[in-house]
């Protein structure tokens, strides 16, 4: 995979892929639980945005509403100029759990995307094997999901989300359950793939360093009700390396975001 760009690709403000306006989400009848309150968010095409916040701040809900999988209580989400009223299909989603099917092999799980969409099987198979190669799992194509470690499984889920060349990648705390070492490695893989494909990525996470490492912009959410507390642009060169975490700039971003979460 080659690196096709050094930083955020398109000039600011010209081409928004996602526009969230005045979004509210209440669970339960009457007063209920307010999960999201008056959330505005725009994501430019090709941008990597991380949504950062503690558990239960509604960040996953925001992602699911964006994907059209959960209806909002009020407000609107526009993706590619169209209001989202039903599940978006021009997306790839990676969930908290890998959701691999035991009745399919590793390759079969990646191919699920092609089988459901009715894509050309041979071409998709080639693409799937290539993606598995990128994340170092080509040799596991014929294995079953239960033979893989948690990190490997989540890599397969990532490949599945990328098979159909979606212009938008939604990641819902995908690496939350992984150990720190595995997480670093998979973050590097994700950056490599994102740089190569040029897709837009929105990732929900509760890890500050993961957010800074991957994102062009980090949106901090406050809990109950979920609101956007701060929007921080991460100005670090690409591709980012693990060593960059030890730089003062990285530490400064970390301090800023920690403050934003605490307040």
């Amino acid at each position, binding site marked *: 995979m080659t690196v096709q760009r050094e930083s955020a690709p398109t000039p600011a403000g010209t081409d928004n892929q996602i526009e969230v306006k005045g979004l509210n989400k209440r669970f339960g009848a009457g007063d209920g639980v307010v999960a999201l309150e008056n959330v505005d968010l725009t994501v430019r095409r090709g941008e990597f945005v991380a949504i950062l916040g503690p558990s239960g701040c509604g960040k996953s809900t925001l992602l699911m509403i964006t994907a059209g999988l959960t209806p909002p209580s009020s407000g609107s989400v526009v993706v590619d100029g169209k209001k989202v009223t039903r*599940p978006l299909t021009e997306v790839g*989603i990676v*969930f908290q759990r890998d959701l691999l099917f*035991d*009745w399919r092999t590793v390759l079969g799980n990646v191919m699920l995307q092609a089988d459901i969409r009715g894509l050309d099987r041979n071409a998709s198979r080639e693409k799937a094997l290539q993606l598995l190669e990128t994340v170092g799992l080509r040799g596991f194509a014929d294995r079953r999901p239960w033979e893989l470690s948690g990190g490997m499984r989540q890599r397969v889920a990532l490949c599945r989300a990328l098979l159909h060349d979606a212009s938008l990648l939604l990641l819902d705390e995908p690496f939350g359950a992984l150990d720190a070492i595995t997480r670093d490695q998979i973050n590097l893989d994700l950056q490599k793939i994102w740089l190569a494909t040029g897709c837009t990525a929105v990732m929900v996470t509760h890890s500050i360093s993961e957010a800074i490492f991957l994102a062009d912009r980090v949106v901090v959410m406050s809990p109950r009700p979920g609101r956007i507390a701060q929007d921080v642009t991460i100005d670090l060169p690409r591709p980012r390396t693990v060593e960059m975490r030890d730089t003062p700039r990285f530490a400064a971003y970390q301090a800023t975001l920690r403050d934003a979460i605490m307040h």
Partner: protein
Amino acid sequence: MTTRSAMRQLTDIAYPALVFIVSIVVWEFGARAGWFPPYVLPAPSSIVARIGDTADLMLHHAVVTSFEIILGFVLAVIIGVALAAMIVFVRTIDKAFYPWLVVVQVIPKVALGPLLVVWLGFGFLPKVLLAFLLSFFPVMISAMVGLRSIDNDSMFLLRSMGADPIKIFRHLQLPSALPGIFGSMKVAITLATVGAIVGEFIGANEGLGYVLVTANGVLDTTLIFVALTWISVLALVFYGAIAMLENMSVHWHVSHRSRAAQALA
């Protein structure tokens, strides 16, 4: 390590075989010593001899009963799964029919036997129907549970791929439900056997259940044992066939993995 595992494999077969042989020997000895009269418990050797003598005739009866069992069971699986899918997918059907299905399940189906004879006569049909009625409920319940036990995220994943309900059924719900359905099929096949035999008790002129009733009428205990042997063999064969089918279709399920792992080890 290999000698120990070979040893274990040997004892796995040897111990149950030993129990069988000792029981038969004691039984045979008891029969010859006159511990019990032959019309109560005939000697194993005379049962075996009778099995040989009656093979042709019994084969005919066994075929009849097998067809009843298989047809009733296959109907139970097809209708059980189809009905489960309809109940899961169509709310109106769930509301209108499910309570009645439970009521029907609570009625002891065997008690319906005489009525089925009145309606359908002494032929093939009432036995098939009884086998079906006894065996379809467990299949339907397992299929319903399996089809419904899909977590939200898996559903979201497939919807984001643009899957319609049919694709969700085919690629997610049915495979998830399959291990449970196979488990219920093992229960259903024994129930179908009971249904066919009882159906023959009530009114028939062929089949293993018919042989049992006529042998009982003339106190031919040896023939009763011959029929029981045939029934047991049939039941074992059917059960084995389903277990094989299960191994082929849901080898990926947790319940089948330990064996695969053992084979590798």
